[in-house]
């Protein structure tokens, strides 16, 4: 036997079935990119925006843009790791300057209900209905600092109306001087869809119920897919292929409803949630994290989760005698802030926004997940506003299209102090040709450094893209409101 023959025999002993599983390859690739994203985020956090507070700070973009974040969000059914339904690896494509056209028509709310808050009326409905209605809406914290303006609230109930203590707010910048150095910065637009071909045409073509044949609808495409777990405390999974997002909610028919047999107000009152039933924030975050882990929803591409508990602002301030009458929400939401290339995303009210996981307080179970969106973006540079005075003037009005201070005569005025800004992105919408575009605009985030009465804003947001600011009408000086009813 020659050496070569012997080597050939040894070679034959290698296990020939060592075939690499392509699902494993894909899964691991996702895990690695998540890890890379996490490492990139850590690295970036350490060097977050080089503010140089000598006399002025320098707002250096290069430190931010250098790290290419490749995050991912994917949904896989439990015990079926290979089934990737939402392979939304974060992808940012750089395109020409000003490629999104004019930014003069940006709005703070989507015209299509994708994100943003609910209207004031829905916010005060009972929790189950409110959550069901807010399918695609992040539990919003939109609204003015005081309860004088409607349109607050969202997936979680809010009872600010119980205690109305009007206060005037005077925003004052107390931070250090700064400059804005970059001449232009990227604006991001989220791309709709999942970025993968989902061909469900055959489902439509073969759907034939008696005389009604959907296959006759030429060129029809399947935009939505809803699947429901037919079991107690089961979930409904809704995938919007057109928008590129996923919503997981309760299958209402199979979840207990303690109010179902209530015939009078006393029954409702008797069964209301009490403060002692609320999970702690850590408990809520643990529940949310565990659910995401169990369902294979990657959270690495998001910022640190937090519990949205703005409702507590008024609750904590209300006297003990009023606390029992206070409506405590049946759902708590844990927010996982979206990050784009390492930047955390805020709503125009200064709250970090992103994927949310709602916890049913009564059962301590996850009841819904929303804003689970594909993460494909285009980036286009726009000129920045270099006039710091203009930025500060807007900050001292409460931020972009947010709070217009109403100087009500004869009531208390409180000072809201704003500290040194950090960079972030604000999520805005643009409606073009009946389509709602989701845009993310570079902004300065001014933290509120004191704790004024009744205010649940944590930050004031001012976009620093010149075109966006130019389009905002100058509200002028505060309007003075006379006490008493109008005649």
């Amino acid at each position: 036997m020659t050496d070569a023959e012997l080597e050939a025999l040894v070679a034959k002993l290698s296990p020939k079935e060592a075939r690499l599983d392509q699902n494993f390859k894909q899964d691991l690739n996702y895990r690695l990119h998540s890890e890379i994203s996490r490492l990139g985020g850590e690295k970036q956090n350490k060097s977050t925006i080089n503010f140089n507070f000598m006399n002025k700070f320098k707002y250096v973009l290069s430190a931010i843009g250098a790290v290419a974040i490749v995050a991912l969000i994917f949904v896989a059914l439990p015990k079926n790791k290979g089934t990737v339904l939402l392979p939304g690896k974060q992808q940012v494509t750089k395109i020409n300057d000003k490629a999104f056209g004019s930014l003069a028509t940006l709005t703070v709310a989507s015209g299509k209900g994708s994100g943003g808050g609910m209207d004031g009326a829905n916010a005060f409905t009972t929790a189950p209905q409110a959550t069901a209605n807010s399918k695609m809406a992040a539990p919003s914290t939109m609204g003015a600092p005081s309860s004088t303006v409607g349109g607050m609230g969202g997936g979680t109930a809010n009872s600010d109306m119980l205690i109305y203590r009007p206060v005037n707010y005077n925003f004052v910048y107390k931070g250090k001087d700064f400059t804005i150095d970059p001449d232009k910065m990227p604006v991001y637009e989220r791309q709709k869809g999942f970025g993968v071909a989902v061909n469900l045409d055959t489902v439509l073509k073969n759907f034939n119920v008696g005389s009604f044949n959907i296959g006759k609808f030429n060129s029809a495409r399947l935009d939505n897919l809803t699947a429901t777990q037919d079991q107690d405390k089961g979930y409904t999974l809704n995938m919007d292929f057109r928008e590129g997002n996923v919503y997981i909610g309760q299958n209402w028919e199979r979840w207990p409803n303690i109010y179902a047999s209530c015939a009078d107000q006393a029954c409702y009152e008797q069964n209301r949630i009490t403060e002692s039933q609320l999970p702690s924030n850590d408990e809520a975050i643990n529940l949310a994290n565990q659910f995401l882990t169990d369902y294979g929803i990657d959270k690495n591409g998001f910022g640190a989760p937090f519990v949205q508990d703005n409702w507590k602002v008024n609750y904590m301030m209300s006297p003990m005698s009023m606390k029992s009458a206070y409506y405590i929400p049946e759902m708590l939401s844990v927010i996982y802030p979206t990050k784009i290339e390492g930047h955390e995303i805020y709503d125009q009210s200064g709250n970090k926004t992103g994927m949310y996981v709602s916890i049913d307080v009564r059962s301590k179970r996850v009841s819904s997940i929303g804003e689970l969106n594909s993460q494909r973006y285009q980036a286009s540079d726009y000129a920045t506003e270099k006039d710091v005075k203009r930025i500060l003037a807007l900050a001292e009005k409460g931020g972009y299209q947010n709070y217009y201070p109403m100087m009500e005569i004869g009531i208390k005025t409180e000072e809201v102090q704003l500290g040194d800004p950090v960079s972030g992105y604000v999520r805005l919408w643009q409606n073009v040709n009946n389509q709602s575009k989701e845009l993310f605009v570079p902004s300065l985030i001014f933290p509120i450094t004191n704790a004024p009465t009744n205010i649940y804003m944590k930050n004031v947001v001012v976009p620093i893209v010149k075109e966006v600011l130019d389009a905002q009408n100058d509200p002028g000086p505060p309007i003075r409101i006379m006490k008493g009813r109008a005649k």
Partner: protein
Amino acid sequence: MESNESEIIAQCVAGNWQNFDSIYDHYLPKIYQFVYYRTRHKQTAEDITAQVFLKAVQHLSSYKSGEAPFSAWLYRIARNAVIDNSRSIKPTQDLETAYNLAGPDNVMRAVDATVTLETVKIKMADLSDLQREVLTMRVWDELSHQEISEILEISEGSSKVAMSRAIANLKQSMEIYEKR
């Protein structure tokens, strides 16, 4: 791959992971195969391979290109992971027993069911650890002596000698066997 590999690695170390997928695509099958050959268990091989690449991503900044090629660095992580795994399965197990984890039935499913092959397999288990490791790296993983020497942290000459002795010992064992 080798031509621009060091450049891509340097980019990754600097925080630009844009081209990482090409490294991943190139090495994943090799590392998986390397691990699978030594564990002969799909799930275990996948778990270990995942550990290897996660470690590589996490510790890439500690990789020094001047000391060893990236491939050697990666294989070394894989080899250590296989050893750690075999220890965790059974505290007294070493790489030799990890190599022998699969019974003859598993092996024979994939190879010709001949007595000769079975004999080679038995005799391979009698080789020294180094000889067996060099032999399998050379024949199964098709690694060069230079790569083997860097992975095992021995000289290239030692690798060649180990290979030569492995073959010689096997031949001798086979001849003794055939004369029976």
